[in-house]
C-alpha cells in the first residue's frame, strides 16, 4: 500500500526521507507495543506503571513521526493507515524492538540499550536541517532522558543484585547483543538523506553509545561482550524475525477485520 502511495508522485529524494521517518516511527511503535505487554503484569505496581508510561511516550513519538510521514506521502495517507495497514515487510524497525519481552531482565536490558541509542540519536536529530524531524526529536529527547535514567538504574540493580538477578542479566545480554549492531548500520535510505545533509549518520553515535553501555555495565558488575561476533540485521529494510508478524497480528487485528473503523 505504501509503495503505491509513494509512487503517486513524490520525488526520489523525498522517498528516502519518508522511509527514514517511517523507520523512526516503527521503532517507537513496535517497542511501545512490546512494553505494553507488561500492563498489569509488572513485578511491582510502580514498575508496571513505569514501563507502561515509557510505552505511552514511545507511542506519542510514533504518532508524531507517522503524522509527518503522512504529510510527506500526501494524498489519503494517515498516521492510522501507516500503523495499521502496512505489512510486515514494509515495517522498518530495528530487530531489537520486536524481540519478545522475555523476563524483566530482558525487558530492562532492551530498554536500556535502546534508550541509550535513542537518546544520542534524538540529540543529533534535534539539529537536523529538516525542521519537523528536529522539532519531534528535541521534544522526545526530554522523555527519553527519563527512560535512560530509569533503565540504567534497573540494569545496575539487577546486575549488582542477587545471584539470580545477575544470572538473568547475563542471559539477557547473550540473547540481545546480536541485535545491537544493526542500530549503527545505516540503511540505504539513511545514507541517502545523510548525503543530502539532512541527518548526520548513526555510525557516528556508536562510540558514545558503547561508552554509556560500558559505564553502566561496570557499575552493574556485568561484562561487555568482547566477541562482537555475528550481528543480525535486516529490520531496517523490512526483513524481520518471526516475532514482528505476531505483534502486527495483535496490533492490527481490528483494522484488518473492520478496515478504517473508527470509535
Amino acid at each position, binding site marked *: 500500500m505504501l509503495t503505491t502511495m509513494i509512487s503517486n508522485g513524490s520525488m526520489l529524494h523525498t522517498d528516502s526521507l519518508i522511509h527514514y521517518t517511517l523507520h523512526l516511527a516503527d521503532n517507537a511503535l513496535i517497542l511501545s507495543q512490546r512494553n505494553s505487554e507488561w500492563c498489569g503484569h509488572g513485578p511491582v505496581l510502580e514498575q508496571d506503571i513505569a514501563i507502561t508510561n515509557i510505552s505511552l511516550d514511545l507511542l506519542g513519538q510514533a504518532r*508524531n513521526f507517522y503524522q509527518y510521514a503522512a504529510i510527506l506521502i500526501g494524498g489519503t495517507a494517515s498516521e492510522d493507515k501507516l500503523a495499521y495497514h502496512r505489512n510486515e515487510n514494509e515495517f522498518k524497525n530495528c530487530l531489537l524492538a520486536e524481540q519478545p519481552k522475555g523476563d524483566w531482565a530482558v525487558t530492562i536490558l532492551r530498554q536500556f540499550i535502546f534508550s541509550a541509542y535513542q537518546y544520542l540519536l534524538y540529540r543529533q536529530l534535534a539539529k537536523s536541517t529538516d525542521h519537523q524531524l528536529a522539532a519531534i526529536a528535541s521534544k522526545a529527547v526530554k522523555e527519553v532522558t527519563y527512560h535512560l535514567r530509569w533503565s540504567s538504574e534497573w540494569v545496575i540493580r539487577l546486575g549488582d543484585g542477587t545471584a539470580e538477578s545477575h544470572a538473568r542479566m547475563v542471559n539477557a545480554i547473550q540473547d540481545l547483543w546480536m541485535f545491537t549492531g544493526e542500530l549503527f548500520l545505516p540503511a540505504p535510505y539513511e545514507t541517502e538523506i545523510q548525503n543530502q545533509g539532512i541527518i548526520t549518520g548513526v555510525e557516528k553515535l556508536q562510540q558514545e553509545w558503547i561508552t554509556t553501555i560500558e559505564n553502566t555495565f561496570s557499575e552493574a558488575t556485568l561484562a561487555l561482550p568482547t566477541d562482537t561476533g555475528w550481528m543480525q540485521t535486516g529490520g531496517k529494510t523490512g526483513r524481520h524475525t518471526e516475532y514482528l508478524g505476531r505483534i502486527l497480528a495483535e496490533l492490527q487485528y481490528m483494522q484488518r477485520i473492520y478496515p478504517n473503523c473508527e470509535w
Partner: protein
Amino acid sequence: MDADTIQIKAAWKILEQVADPEVPVLTVIDLGIIRHIDIVEHRLQITITPTYTGCPAMDVMSMGIRMALLENGFKHIEIKQVLSPAWTTDWMSESGKQKLKAYGIAPPNTTQAVCTPQSFQQEESIQCPLCNSYHTQLISQFGSTACKALYKCDDCKEPFDYFKCH
C-alpha cells in the same frame, strides 16, 4: 483597540475556563500550552504545544478549547499544534504552581539541572505539598500520568505526586 485585538483578548479569557482533565485544578493557560492566539483570515487560530508527546489529555484539552470557544460565540476556530520550541514546566504559571500545591501535587522545581540521564540522582528538595517538609524521597520516576513522579514524605508519611521538571 481594533476588533481583532478585542476578540483575541476575549478568547484568552475564555480559555481560562478550560481545565486539564487529568489535573483539573490547572487550566490550559496555567499549563502554558497555549502559545499564540491570532486572527488569520477571519478565523481564530489557537496554537498549542503538547506537554508530553503521548499525553492522552492533549486531545481532550484540544476538544475542550474548541467547545468553550464555540459556546462563547466563536464560529471559525482552527487549533494548530506546534512541537517547537518544546514545552517546558518553566512555562507553568506561578498561580498554576500554587494551585497544584493546594491540590496536593508538588509543583515542578524551576531548576532544570537534574533533567539528565545520570543514574540514582535525586531532584533537590522536593517539598511535601501536605506538611511542607523537605524530608522526602523518590518512590518512582513514573507516576499516575506522564507528567508526574511518585514521592513519599518521610515526616508525615504520606505519598504524593510531583509534577516533574521537563
